[in-house]
């Protein structure tokens, strides 16, 4: 615990990590600003334009009203609902021609979806930077003369990276969700709808563990290669070769990508398509192919992410234990 306490103190004192956290909060503030703009009441011009379009629609409706009523009566005699209701459903409504009122779950959903990548990248960067800075400044050898057990140093530093990234992610999500809620209160808009609060809270509950995994991945990679540029190279290579190219070349291997598993974890499941081919029953010797959607479940996605982090951490720990520290 002593080492973890020191590492957390070291994490807290690093200006670069504060900069990353600051950028993340800036992104959150951007979503709040977008919500402020998106929840503004319609302008006079928008109202005038909408009203004009509505009145034109009413005129058009009056022109075809009798024919619609006739059709509705026929439907009514055929067992459908009352003709009056049927006609009313075709009548234009003014609200359909005005900008839609703001909807809290949609605004928050947009913000949390938009923040997912920045939060995960920030957590990864924090994990990488926290460890590579130590190798870059060559302070690791000094530290090892005070804490010679490398397994403990590895564990405490990785844990500090994960715990340090957590408040930044939480603050970013809190600022975005709290800010948007405040915007709704200030605008006098209703915070209601199915899952008004449960959806964002569920997103937070899934995104925070993902941020921890990202920070651990960053720390593990940093222990393995020791240079931020080398980690960046690996991440870019992985993104291009595995995340982007592999599913296109071998679609059945899509479940091996972290992106799909991350989506499955965050969204409660994700689908990918594979082409299934079999003998064509109509043409002898021919093949019949069709696309089939397959599902990666949330639990599977989370498990794959955990296993990936564990594998990278194991490699990082092994390299750190075996390789000389300069």
């Amino acid at each position, binding site marked *: 615990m002593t080492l973890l306490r020191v590492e957390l103190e070291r994490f807290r004192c690093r200006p670069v990590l504060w900069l990353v956290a600051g950028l993340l909060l800036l992104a959150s503030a951007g979503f709040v600003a977008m919500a402020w703009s998106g929840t503004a009441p319609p302008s006079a011009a928008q109202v005038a334009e909408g009203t004009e379009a509505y009145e034109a629609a009413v005129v058009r409706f009056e022109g075809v009203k009798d024919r619609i009523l006739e059709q509705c009566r026929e439907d009514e005699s055929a067992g459908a609902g009352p003709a009056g209701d049927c006609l009313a459903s075709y009548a234009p409504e003014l609200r359909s021609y005005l900008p839609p009122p703001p909807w809290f779950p949609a605004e928050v959903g947009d913000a949390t979806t938009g923040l997912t990548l920045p939060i995960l990248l920030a957590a990864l960067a924090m994990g990488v930077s926290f460890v590579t800075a130590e190798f870059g*400044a060559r302070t690791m050898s000094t530290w090892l003369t*005070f804490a010679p057990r490398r397994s403990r140093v590895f564990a405490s530093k990785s844990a500090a990276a994960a715990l340090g990234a957590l408040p930044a992610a939480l603050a970013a999500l809190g600022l975005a969700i709290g800010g948007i809620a405040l915007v709704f209160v200030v605008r006098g808009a209703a915070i209601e709808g199915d899952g008004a609060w449960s959806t964002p809270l569920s997103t937070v509950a899934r995104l925070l563990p993902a941020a921890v995994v990202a920070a651990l991945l960053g720390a593990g990679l940093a222990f393995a290669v020791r240079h931020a540029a080398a980690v960046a190279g690996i991440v870019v290579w992985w993104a291009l070769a595995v995340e982007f190219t592999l599913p296109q070349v071998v679609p059945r291997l899509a479940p091996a990508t972290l992106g799909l598993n991350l989506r499955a974890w965050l969204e409660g499941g994700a689908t990918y398509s594979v082409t299934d081919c079999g003998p064509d029953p109509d043409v002898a010797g021919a093949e019949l192919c069709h696309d089939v959607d397959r599902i990666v479940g949330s639990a599977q996605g989370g498990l794959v992410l955990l296993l990936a982090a564990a594998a990278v951490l194991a490699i990082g720990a092994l390299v750190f234990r075996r390789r000389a520290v300069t």
Partner: protein
Amino acid sequence: MNDEPAIRTRGLRKTYRSFTLREVVAVEGLDLDVPVGGVHAFLGPNGAGKTTTIRMLLGLERPDSGSIRVLGHDLSGGLEAAVAKVGAIVEQPRFYPAFSGRRNLSLLAQSVGAEAKVDGLLAQVGLADRAGDRYRSYSLGMKQRLAVASTLLKDPELVIFDEPTNGLDPAGVHDVRTIMRALADAGRTVLVSSHMLAEVEQVADTVSIVVGGRLVADGRVADLVGSRARGAVRVDVTDPVRGGEALERRGWAVRRDGEALVVEGVDDPVEVSRVLADAGVYVRELVAERPDLEQVFLELTGAPGAVRPQGVGA
């Protein structure tokens, strides 16, 4: 009483692979003994394996073979127990550039429960006024001072200084020398690797000299220097020809150096004076040419071959 040395290595070997996969031997079968207490100098030319050895003593490198015992602990299983009692500066001082000197020291102190000592140590090394400044703004001398302070955080039994006076001004060199001497006088063991032989000679009690990763000499500094003290007497006489003949008849090797004679193989310079007086040659000046550690070092590092005068660690 336990007479085990503070550091004992046996058959220590470390090799590296170059990019062309060529094997480079950094340390080759090193048997090093550093006695408990006192200042022990660890000397050798660049590339002799001093820093590699120090890094192995601290567990920063793994030896290919051989054994290391530090303060009674075998490093293969007792690294933590050994290093807990060792303060060390390895190569350059290494601290976080963006943190202040105080914060750097405080972070290290927290790991060993020595936070209360931070301010006192900063004052002791003359950094109290600049303790709040960022480490990156420090001069090399200030960085060295901070590193010296960090070695003292653990109240160490063994302090290892790798080139501790690099970049220090004369006052700083004096301070480090004083600190080393004070530590030794307090019963601690100081291992200092340095190129500044004159400095080392002033402060070291014992010495080990390595060349090409091998030990070529060790023992007390006085013994090592004294073992090469025989023979060098420079004498300026009124009649060099007659004086030279008289000295050669006595069995000494004599060579001319201008008007002076250099007589080698002399045990006692008084003998030279007596022989010249007996020959009726008068002496203007007589100087016993006593080699210093630097001369011994140059002689040994230029001609490898173990020389083990009696003394500690031998």
